[in-house]
């Protein structure tokens, strides 16, 4: 019967208990860990005035694209790229295999909203409303406590960007993307990498991104450099009926190591907002990159994000993904393992509640010998939410010795919701070991009974079980983000009292 290269798999995948843990924040006092934090919806769902902001006209035309480019004073090649991307966008069809996008009308979307400030490197210089926004989201506090650098984007532009001296002295570059593009030292690097991993031809919303991208971060980690503390970018979309199209480009040279965290949120409106960002990660030989995301867009958001990593020989990428927001989501971080013994891990959870249709998962292409991948995905649906796990594993002819395991577990919390798994495997090499398992079910009555007999209410029991279900994801995050994720779960679980078990 089929067997695989188990010894090489063991070498490639250290048990998680033996891995270096993420640095613990100084402010993570015992009382904070033990306390049950009251859920405060206003933390995310608040609106700031758009006074002072500049909005372009809604819609998508060559003139709008030229206006965006002119405002940024970009090199000519970037404007040409934008216009070519717009042509490609107009030629490609809307995907017909995922959640409906009928409610998304580009004629009504404002693709560029400039906040009333330029980029700052100290919070005191940021306008009060915007500063207050990020303070309510905990960003400045997090920066002080445990981050090596922060980028904060508000609508279409970065409003704050800073990196610690220790990181800068080590040669690490963490700049706003547009600022880096204007730097003659970085512009050639950017030109060499920009939208080479995610091309405009890839799909319609990659082409849209190519046409109207704005903001985002450029990160460069020199060879052999390890950053002990994470960098974080936070994206806030405040403007009504607008889109956010940030571009994140990270290059980790041979032997380098980085943990990058991104978070996002927006207030809820009764019109559609759109997020079509792009993340391109280039990981060199023996390099490591962990990319963590807590996605909490409002439920009027169409989240059509594209993330892709290219991993070199002996390199590895780890994706940690928590998806809680958006009304419609298409999100499939992709890893291309292009060097021998490259590996990837994906750990993710998606929570689809009322009015949400979230289609998430991951893709892996194994294109070199002895490459490997581990995928552990979990999904929860309730209150009529629709959650789909969609994956693709492609093992090319070059991937002899490939070792892959995909696991997907979906939990349904009521009979009004939906949960689908649509995994695909395309294997074209012989000496491989590919495994997949998936399960869908509900919370067992016996588990509920056990917890309730210990004094928990039904809602508390369900929340406890769901937190346990989500634990493989939350334990991969720094404590503060795990707490936020647990808060989001608690938010979603409100109202389960009295639900049929």
């Amino acid at each position, binding site marked *: *019967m*089929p*067997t*695989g290269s188990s010894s090489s798999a063991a070498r490639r995948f250290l048990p998680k208990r033996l891995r270096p843990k993420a640095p613990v924040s100084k402010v993570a006092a015992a009382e904070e860990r033990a306390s049950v934090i009251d859920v405060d919806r206003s933390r995310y769902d608040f609106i700031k005035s758009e006074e002072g902001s500049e909005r372009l006209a809604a819609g998508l035309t060559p003139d709008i694209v030229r206006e965006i480019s002119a405002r940024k004073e970009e090199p000519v090649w970037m404007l040409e790229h934008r216009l070519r991307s717009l042509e490609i966008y107009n030629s490609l069809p809307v995907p*017909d*295999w995922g959640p409906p996008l009928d409610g998304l009308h580009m004629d009504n979307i404002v693709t560029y909203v400039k906040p009333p400030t330029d980029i700052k490197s100290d919070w005191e210089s940021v306008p009060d409303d915007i500063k207050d926004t990020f303070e309510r989201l905990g960003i400045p506090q997090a920066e002080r406590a445990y981050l090596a650098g922060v980028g904060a984007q508000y609508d279409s532009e970065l409003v704050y960007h800073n990196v610690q001296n220790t990181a800068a002295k080590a040669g690490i570059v963490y700049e706003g993307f547009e600022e880096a593009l204007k730097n003659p030292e970085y512009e050639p690097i950017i030109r060499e990498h920009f939208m080479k991993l995610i091309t405009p031809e890839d799909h319609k919303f990659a082409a849209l991104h190519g046409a109207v991208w704005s903001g985002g971060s450029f990160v460069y980690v020199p060879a052999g450099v390890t950053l002990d503390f994470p960098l974080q970018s936070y994206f806030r979309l405040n403007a009504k009926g607008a889109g956010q199209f940030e571009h994140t480009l990270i290059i980790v040279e041979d032997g380098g190591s980085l943990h990058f965290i991104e978070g996002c949120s927006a207030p809820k409106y009764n019109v559609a907002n759109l997020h079509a960002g792009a993340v391109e990660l280039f990981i060199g030989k023996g390099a490591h990159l962990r990319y963590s995301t807590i996605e909490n867009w409002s439920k009027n958001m169409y989240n059509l994000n594209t993330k892709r990593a290219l991993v070199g020989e002996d390199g590895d990428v780890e994706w940690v993904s928590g998806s809680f927001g958006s009304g419609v989501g298409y999100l499939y971080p992709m890893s291309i393992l292009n060097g021998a013994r490259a590996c990837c891990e994906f750990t993710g959870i998606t929570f689809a509640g009322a009015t949400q249709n979230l289609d998430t998962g991951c893709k892996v292409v194994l294109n070199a010998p002895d490459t490997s991948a581990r995928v552990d995905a979990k999904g929860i649906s309730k209150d009529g939410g629709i959650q789909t796990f*969609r994956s*693709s594993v*492609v093992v090319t*002819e070059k991937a002899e010795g490939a070792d892959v395991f995909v696991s997907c577990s*979906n939990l*349904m*919390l*009521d*009979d009004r*919701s*939906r*949960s*689908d*798994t*649509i*995994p*695909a*495997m*395309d*294997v*074209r090499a*012989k*000496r*491989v*070991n*590919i*495994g*997949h*398992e*998936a*399960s*869908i*079910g*509900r919370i067992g009555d016996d588990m509920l009974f056990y917890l309730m007999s210990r004094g928990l209410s039904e809602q508390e029991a369900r929340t406890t079980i769901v937190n346990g279900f989500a634990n493989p994801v939350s334990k991969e995050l720094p404590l503060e983000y795990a707490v936020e994720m647990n808060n989001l779960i608690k938010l979603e679980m409100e109202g389960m009292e009295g639900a049929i078990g």
Partner: protein
Amino acid sequence: MAEVLMNRPPAITWHRLRANGTLVELPGAAPLGDADMAGWLAANTADRRQVELTCGEEAAVQMDIDAVAGEVAVHAVDVIAPAGARGRVTVHVDGDGAAGADGSTLGLAIRVKAEAGARVELELLQTLGMGFTYVESVDLDLAADARVALSQTELGASRTFAGVAAELAGDGSETQIDVRYLGRGRAQLDFNYALRQTGRETRTNLVANGILADEARKTLRDTIDLVHGCFGSVGEETETVLLLGERTSNISLPVILCDEEDVQGSHGATIGHV
């Protein structure tokens, strides 16, 4: 020749994976209605037989279908199992036809209607020569407490397209499907299983085991569809593929669609080598 879309699954995915159905050219009459497997089979059916099982004595029916090289032929078999009936129907499809025999195409369209409490075993064995294209369609319709066990063994033909659609509308109905296949040379095997559970406490179990050697190519899609209202139902699928050739191609699409809380759905797949 007619262009026919074979084996489109209930839920499609990224098109570049080439798993959303297979477009092929088939000889014979153009399909009736949709240009799909059912349409092509219906347009080319020349022989229809009916097998009616009875209560009491367990019937065993054997059919041997000999395909003729160079010809296009479709055989249709309707298996009727009234309430409480039991029986086994075995169909062996065979025919000599070396590679290069143009137009050699055989189709088999089987419909099983199992009424309440019926027990039906359906065994299909295909050993066609490598010059053949083989199209096999099985439709299963199960009433309350009916049981249908389907065994499919595909050992020959240069191109095999097999589709099974099961409708478990009756409460307590069950279907067990065992698939075995061998791909050699440059054979192409293309499967699609759509198992739709609408009745309460229904069970489906699909087990697929296959071997791919030389440059054989295989696509297997299976969909467990747990429809709203099928309380207490269980759907399971397991696939194992043994790769013996250096240039084989294997595509697997094991799908679970779940629109009900009080159910269990699971699948597992293992693909590898000795």
